[in-house]
């Protein structure tokens, strides 16, 4: 298939950057989106121009490194799919696709399509942990946890920290990320004790990093490759509210 690609190019954080148009004439529908970019980069290298920088690692939808805004939707049009798991058969021959980096003040562009997401790491450092020393890994099933509760914790833990929620949100808010990270700890007995303090610490760090607030549009849930529910945001609000009055 033939494609026209409009791709964001930016030399470094200081550069203004802009969209650059490229043609690809022989794209296989079975390629993944990243393989399609690999082919384009091969072309560019042969022509002696600089290949396009984009983030990727596992290419199997589990690491959260790939981060492309494809035609206005994070990770492209397929639901519950990362860009690396998106296949070119999703598109039509002759399509024009616009590919941009995640846009958020808290995710500055490093180069081309690569953004710096260490703001997420600092949110985790602020409260996304359990502070008791638990020693070695306990035996399985030593602490009984109801199946339903364990399932909820697992649903939240599916977050791969890719940042699609921020990219999709009209406010560039990180609430779904923060809520998922706080939620998977809060649903387990080890993490539950600190959930109010954790909600507060993580939300304050989120603000500090310059992410926006939540307007409850729920585009984050729709964009999330792991389809994490905004119910976790409601829980985060709940824990934060309780902490507001209990003083911790």
């Amino acid at each position, binding site marked *: 298939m033939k494609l026209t690609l409009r791709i964001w190019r930016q030399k470094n954080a200081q550069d203004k950057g802009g969209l650059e148009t490229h043609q690809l004439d022989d794209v296989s529908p079975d390629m993944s989106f990243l393989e399609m970019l690999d082919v384009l980069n091969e072309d560019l290298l042969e022509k002696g121009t600089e290949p396009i920088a984009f983030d990727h690692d596992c290419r199997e939808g589990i690491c959260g490194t790939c981060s492309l805004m494809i035609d206005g*939707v994070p990770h492209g049009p397929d639901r519950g799919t990362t860009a690396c798991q998106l296949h070119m058969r999703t598109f039509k021959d002759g399509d024009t696709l616009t590919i941009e980096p995640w*846009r958020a003040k808290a995710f500055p562009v490093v180069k081309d399509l690569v953004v710096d997401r260490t703001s997420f790491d600092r949110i985790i450092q602020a409260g996304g942990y359990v502070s008791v020393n638990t020693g070695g890994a306990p035996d399985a099933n030593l602490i009984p946890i109801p199946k339903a509760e364990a399932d909820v914790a697992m649903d939240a833990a599916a977050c791969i920290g890719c940042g699609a929620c921020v990219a999709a949100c009209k406010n*560039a808010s990180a609430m779904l990320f923060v809520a998922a990270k706080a939620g998977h700890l809060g649903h387990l007995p080890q993490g539950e004790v600190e959930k109010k303090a954790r909600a507060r610490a993580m939300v304050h760090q989120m603000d500090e990093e310059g992410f*926006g607030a939540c307007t*409850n549009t729920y585009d984050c849930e729709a964009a999330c490759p792991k389809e994490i529910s905004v119910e976790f945001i*409601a829980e985060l609000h709940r824990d*934060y509210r309780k902490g*507001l009055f209990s003083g911790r």
Partner: protein
Amino acid sequence: MNWLLRGLRSSVGLKFVMAVTGLLLFGFVLAHLAGNLQIFAGADQLNGYAKSLQDLGPLLWVARGGLLAIFVLHVGTGVMLARRNRAARGTPYAVQKAIDSTHASRAMVSTGVVVMIFVVYHLMHFTLGVGIRPEFHDWTDPQGRHDVYSMVVAGFQQLPIALFYIVSMLGLGVHLSHGLASMFQSLGWNQPKYRSFTRLLGIGITAVIILGNISMPVAAQFGLIELPEWNPLVNGGN
């Protein structure tokens, strides 16, 4: 106290303020509608109701002050959030699509501004009686009460005013259709099992508010409510 204030200044805290003030304003809008629908029971009923409010005296001013404070908090917090949210994006996208979000959820600021403009006009029109046909505001009925009934009917008989009210109410409707459901989420009351319920509740109550409020200008336009015989405009006056 510091702990509380600092907590309320965060993005989540500001949303609590937004939700609580929104809920209070919403309660006011409902009560206001219930009061005004008495127009369909005739001039005597409505003017009597208006007098009972006036007779509250200082209490009325306390209520007005409280309402103003809530309104200012809601708008002020909304503006603060909107500015933060705009700054958070930085460079805009060349292409960005809404995925599941509704128009209403993305237009809270614009619909809020519509409501804001409306409220200013509305207060000038009916409460302060300044600017637009101030003489309407000085009418009295045969019992010597402020003739609210005539003032409202005469106002709504003018097509541009009726249209302005109707359009503004649609704006409020769009604002509330998202706002009410959103409030549950902001306060952390959004359990999955209630999600469709809160959404329906939002839409249902919004419909009541909008249809109720719009019914008055529409009724005046179609002659379903008319000026009483004692009104100076009725016998060829102006």
